[in-house]
């Protein structure tokens, strides 16, 4: 007979086994990507699954040079940083106002901010490009970053709003009593409290903006100067043939920074999501 303790232990082992199997299942395609980025073309084509017979580091050297990696990396940084700044500033202030000032107008505003999450991108692609051409935001890195404000704010506001609900109003009031204005209260008292949720917003948006394909393809693919890493990786995919060894290497190089970023910040994101979810 198993004791109760042993039974619990067995359950845990089973659960862990299942979790590991699931993780392996999800990680496998990424493993294939890295694996094939380290093989010469010949080996990629002959057997996708096999491990490299020797590490083809020259793939990385070639791709870094052909992609002009350094310059494109900076392009990605500019787009992502501009996008993030706007998303965080606008959505945190919006969420604060919506939560603290409750009247008909803020309810309508809340509704209008959140619903765009439901509209598929493809439906307004044409009008977006047309509008951005008029404003001169198409074909520019900063312009693309600004466009992400519109795409990122709904989700971020939603997350912030849920969290701010859990911040007691007494904190605001004590700041007011000390003579702080609304903006001062927000900037010096509330915003610091939002730190875990801000980290979450940063991580979620970096993962998405850094690796986005369709919007950059539409807006900044037209010159070498403005292209992003992911776009550049796609130039190895041709009409019939694909240079798989280079495409995989380019993908690893394009995605790696965002993955590293995610790994570094992931303990915050978990905290943040839980904070918002449970208390909200």
């Amino acid at each position, binding site marked *: 007979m198993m004791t109760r303790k042993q039974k619990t232990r067995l359950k845990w082992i089973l659960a862990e086994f299942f979790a590991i199997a699931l993780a392996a299942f999800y990680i496998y395609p990424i493993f294939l990507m890295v694996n094939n980025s380290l093989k010469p073309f010949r080996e990629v*084509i002959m057997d996708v699954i096999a491990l490299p017979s020797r590490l083809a580091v020259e793939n990385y050297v070639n791709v870094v040079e052909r992609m002009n990696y350094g310059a494109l990396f900076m392009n990605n940084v500019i787009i992502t940083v501009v996008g993030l700044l706007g998303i965080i500033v606008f959505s945190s202030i919006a969420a604060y106002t919506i939560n603290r000032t409750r009247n008909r107008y803020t309810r309508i505003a809340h509704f209008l901010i959140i619903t765009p999450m439901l509209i598929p991108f493809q439906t307004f692609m044409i009008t977006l490009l047309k509008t951005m051409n008029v404003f001169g935001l198409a074909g520019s890195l900063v312009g693309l970053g600004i466009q992400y404000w519109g795409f990122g704010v709904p989700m971020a506001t939603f997350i912030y709003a849920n969290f701010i609900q859990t911040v007691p109003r007494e904190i605001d009031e004590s700041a007011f009593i000390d003579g702080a204005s609304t903006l001062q209260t927000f900037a010096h008292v509330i915003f610091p409290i939002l730190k875990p949720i801000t980290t979450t917003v940063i991580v979620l948006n970096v993962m998405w903006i850094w690796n986005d394909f369709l919007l950059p393809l539409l807006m900044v693919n037209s010159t070498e100067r403005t292209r992003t890493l992911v776009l550049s990786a796609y130039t190895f*995919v041709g009409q019939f043939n694909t240079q798989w060894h280079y495409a995989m290497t380019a993908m690893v190089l394009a995605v790696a920074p965002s993955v590293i970023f995610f790994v570094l910040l992931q303990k915050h994101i978990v905290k943040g999501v839980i904070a918002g979810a449970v208390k909200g």
Partner: protein
Amino acid sequence: MRKTTGVVLLIALLVMGTMSQVAFAAKEISIFISMPEYADAIRELINEYKKVKPDVVIHYETTQSDYPTLLKVKLNSGDLPDIFASTTGKEIELYKEYSLDLSDQPLANAMEKAVRDSMADANGNGVYGLAIKGNYFGMVYNKGLFEELGVKVPETFAELETAIEQFNAAGITPFSSGFGEWWVFKHAFQHFLAAATDNVPGLVQQFEQGQAKFKDYPELYENWFRFVDLVYANGDAKPLESTISTEIAALALGQAAMVVGQGPWIEADVKAIDPEIKIGIAGYPVSDNAAQAQVIAGADQAMRISNSSDAEQEVLDFINWWYTSDYGETWFIDVAKVVSPIVTDRMADFDLVRDGAMQVSERGSAPIGIIYSTDSFHMSFGEIMQAYLGGQLTKDEACAQIEQKWMEIDGQ
């Protein structure tokens, strides 16, 4: 407070910065085409043109994924590039109202006839584009293996069956099929279309209008299906998972004697695996008439010139230079290494290009048929053929579905 003001100021600055980036240079040409495999070559071409016309700035943009979608988005938002791409044939008509007729340009005379023909509109008039490459379509085979085993390159079904037997007996897989790729089917099928009629565009049109039936054309109803059945039965272990990469590997490693649906574009990759291999290209056996086994020559992709360009003269100068200058000729052959779309005595140093040219001069070329249907139709066509081979559809069901899709997708 100060922090917030700072952020707001920063944003305002950024916005102004973007606005001021919108500069208008006098002579700019924008190119937006598919086929990124020629990106390096085109950049070289552009750099060379800078020496000829230093004041012209060329913006070159390329993508393969989502190209048709993006082109439509650009077109609809009034952002049509000066040079854009489409397939030839049917799509020539589709974008005709946006593109210039180049008949009176010097480049039209420099163009190979087969290429020029595929740039004409539905009535056979005009030159509504230029090609980045000519092409050959046919059955690519391992010449070394054929010679070693003394197998004759098959030109009829009887010879095909003999060849299959000989290879099977020698323990070599006769075919690698590529049946996992939708476009492999269209490339092979056009040879059977050409065998079925002398007027391929006419027959395609009849199919689109629902007036033609597979049953009335034994080359399609019997021979085409017989061919894919033979390849399926004598091909890869998992034919429906076979892709261009499978075909390249099987051919280069001497595991398969013939590959379906390919052309000169695989040579560089095959040679990357085995630099010593000898390969050739031949027409498919499509009937019992050996004369019908012909390679197909032509251009399947067109670069179109916008008729609403602000820099029309600059664009025309550029493409005329591309097609008629000495550098242009060298570019096609030595830089892009393609089947030359312009008339020239020189030839890219590739087995399949040389062999294709020889085949065409000796046996003639069958008409290129893929260009008369859209790729939307061809994708459906490929999926139906895969369903047939996978056993989900009978031959009659497959034919009925193809006839149906031809009407639905290309019929308007």
